[in-house]
């Protein structure tokens, strides 16, 4: 197997904020290695420390302890001026876009190039090219107030790519967007990753985002990495409580049932036709009922995405019949020990 090169490495990164009567530890000894060219997800519930973690990568937040390497170069020891130069190798996009409201889309994309000292004509040419890449070639002279949320995020992506960074950091980049727009922006990120080979770090609280584009994922819980690995693997069998809450309940159900349960299955909908009542038909077909424990599905363009947790009957025969029914449909089924 080829050994993959490392793009970002965190070694024992800690961050604590001073507070009344002591300090609060937001990150505790985080070790992390992100490979060149991968899309790496960092997921956690709000307050888990993921936003602080991503800011420790480009040192918008200075870690209280630990080392940060970008492409082999340690950043925390650099003087301000050199650090600013290194930051040009890392683009960043935000939940609220943070565009310059008094500048046009084109001028916004030129902005990081002005900072980097690129000549006006060159900056302009590059900005036009990037805005075309993100599908906004027609809106060069629009101001952010005239653009939709998805378009603003596309401008922000173009802006983040302007200095040809090695890394793109995405801090909840799709959390302010509706599902349709989210899908478009995620496709764009994936496309950028494949075409330009840029390493992407995605911070999110939405498991669906991770599932959509990430290769590997780290689950952050209370300032620590609860688990980390290939996305499919974590999805199939989350090992920790934080992992299960995120995978099975999208972090919405903090009161998840504890302890192992029997005959529990997760049904994952990956874009089947929504009009078809699969579970209802299954119960009629098998002449037995299943217990729906929780559900989290949504419709996008007439197709259904999401998952349901169901408990099937004790009788092995009926259970197998039901499973066979489901497996023949446009859904995925897997047995789980926890809900």
């Amino acid at each position, binding site marked *: 197997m080829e050994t993959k090169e490392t793009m970002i490495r965190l070694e024992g990164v800690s961050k604590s904020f001073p507070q009344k009567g002591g300090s609060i530890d937001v990150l505790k000894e985080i070790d992390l290695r992100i490979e060149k060219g991968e899309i790496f997800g960092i997921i956690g519930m709000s307050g888990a420390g993921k936003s602080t973690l991503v800011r420790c990568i*480009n040192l918008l937040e200075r870690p209280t302890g630990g080392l940060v390497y970008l492409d082999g170069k340690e950043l925390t020891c650099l003087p301000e001026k050199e650090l600013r130069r290194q*930051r040009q190798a890392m683009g960043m996009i*935000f939940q609220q876009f943070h565009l310059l*409201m*008094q*500048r046009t889309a084109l001028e916004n994309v030129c902005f990081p190039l002005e900072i980097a000292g690129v000549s006006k004509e060159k900056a302009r040419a590059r900005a036009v090219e990037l805005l075309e890449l993100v599908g906004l070639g027609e809106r060069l002279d629009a101001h952010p*107030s005239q653009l939709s949320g998805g378009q603003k995020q596309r401008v922000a992506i173009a802006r983040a790519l302007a*200095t040809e960074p090695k890394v793109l950091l995405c801090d909840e980049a799709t959390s302010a967007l509706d599902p349709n727009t989210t899908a478009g922006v995620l496709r764009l990120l994936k496309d950028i990753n494949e075409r330009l080979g840029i390493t992407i770090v995605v911070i999110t609280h939405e498991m669906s985002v991770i599932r959509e584009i990430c290769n590997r994922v780290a689950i952050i819980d209370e300032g620590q990495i609860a688990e980390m690995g290939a996305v499919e693997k974590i999805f199939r069998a989350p090992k920790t409580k934080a992992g299960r809450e995120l995978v099975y309940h999208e972090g919405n159900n903090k009161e998840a049932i504890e302890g192992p349960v029997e005959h529990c299955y997760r049904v994952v909908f990956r874009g089947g036709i929504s009009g078809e009542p699969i579970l209802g038909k299954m119960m009629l077909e098998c002449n037995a009922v299943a217990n729906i424990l929780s559900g989290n599905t949504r419709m996008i363009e007439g197709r259904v995405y999401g998952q349901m947790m169901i408990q099937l009957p004790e009788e092995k025969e009926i259970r197998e019949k039901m499973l066979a029914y489901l497996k023949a449909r446009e859904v995925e089924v897997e047995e789980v020990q926890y809900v």
Partner: protein
Amino acid sequence: MFKAGMLAVVGTAFLESIYMTLISTLLTYIIGLPLGLFLIMTDKEGVRPMPVFHQALGILINILRSIPFLILLVTIMPFTKMVVGTVIGPKAAIVALVVSGAPFVARLVESSLKEVEKGVIEAAQSMGASPLQILVKVLLPEAKPSLLIGSAIAVTTILGYSAMAGFVGGGGLGAVAINYGYYRGQRDVMYVMVVLLVVIVQVLQEMGMQIAKKTDQRL
């Protein structure tokens, strides 16, 4: 009511008022704008935190702002004499107007720049922008509409103060209102002065708002 000579007096006073106000505003901004920028930059959440300097500057500004204008005008007379060589007339008034106006403008500028979203500054930092670049390319342009509205407030406030300076021989419309309207009991002259001041304030305020609106791209 108006004697022939009165018109000339009012005309001169009008020009004096405009002259005092515009020159004072200009000088006030030359001093107040950098002060406001310092306040923002050195704030503990600013781009270049300097807590001790920030606090000292804040206290100085508060002290100057808490002295009533007429008292300040009289108190700084030795200073005024040193700077312009006289303590009466429009020139002398300008000194007092600037000393009083600069701290006010510093606070106006500070509050305008505070309106710029912190996230936008963070985004600029993430691109490797230096504090100076953030100031010149982010804070000032993004706060421009608000700064313009602030300047309309500043210029009208300074006009009001300049009228007060008339009390102590500062010249301008205020002086005419006091000398003819108050001391000589020519009420009609006083009313005319008041109306003139109101009109000037309206015009300046409206101009400021219109320019701010025109240049704002946020809609």
